[in-house]
């Protein structure tokens, strides 16, 4: 099971949790496509240029590989302090 973590405004659109990835989902691009097919609003939000995807705490640029053992976070723009 992959762990999907949604932060900030994304956490209003989807609940973080463990998900079994389909065999076809082998990178972050395919993952977003799959999530978008399930939930168009979530898909649109995840595809924003401003959402960073991190895989096991490493920022994933481009189509980063993902497996069922990974923790995958979707991070919209930060607002601290």
């Amino acid at each position, binding site marked *: 099971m992959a762990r999907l973590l949604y932060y*900030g405004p994304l956490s209003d659109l989807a609940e973080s949790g463990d998900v079994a990835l389909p065999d076809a989902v082998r990178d972050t691009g395919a993952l977003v496509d799959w999530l978008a097919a399930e939930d168009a609003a979530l898909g649109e939000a995840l595809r924003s240029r401003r959402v960073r995807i991190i895989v096991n705490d490493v920022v994933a640029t481009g189509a980063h590989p993902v497996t069922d053992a990974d923790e995958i*976070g979707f991070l919209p723009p*930060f*607002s*601290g*302090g």
Partner: protein
Amino acid sequence: MSALIITVGLEAEPFSPEEAAARFRRSAEGAGAIVHFIGLVRDSASSEAVRGLFLQHAPGLTLRTIEKFGIEAAERWHLQRADIIHRIGEVGPGEPIVFVATAAAHRRAAFEGADFLMDHLKSEAPFWKKERRASGDVWIEPRAEDYADKARWT
């Protein structure tokens, strides 16, 4: 440069910035200059009363990111120490939300180190801030100035 000179705390409960300042000063013996920044929750947004904030973070990642900024500041300005405390969860109006302290031999280093840390905490540390307004909750995005402020350091 040892990472031990950086202290980062994520606090779910209100804290006293003055007590943090006293601890910091004791730990920074021999420094010539100390700068503190305290960020406080204001009780109004652009137009509306704000009943408080909710601060989401990414456990692990948030702490490591802040530590990385602390080490960067300490190396760049030869800081003797740096302390960062950031609230998480629910924060009430008027409460301190962030405390940054820097200690150095001279004042410019202490000022710039604290300024750098705040700019990075604002727009580069994994926090997501929701304002609890009378009309409902609103997620806050960094202001354009926050990105511009951060860009001063690159």
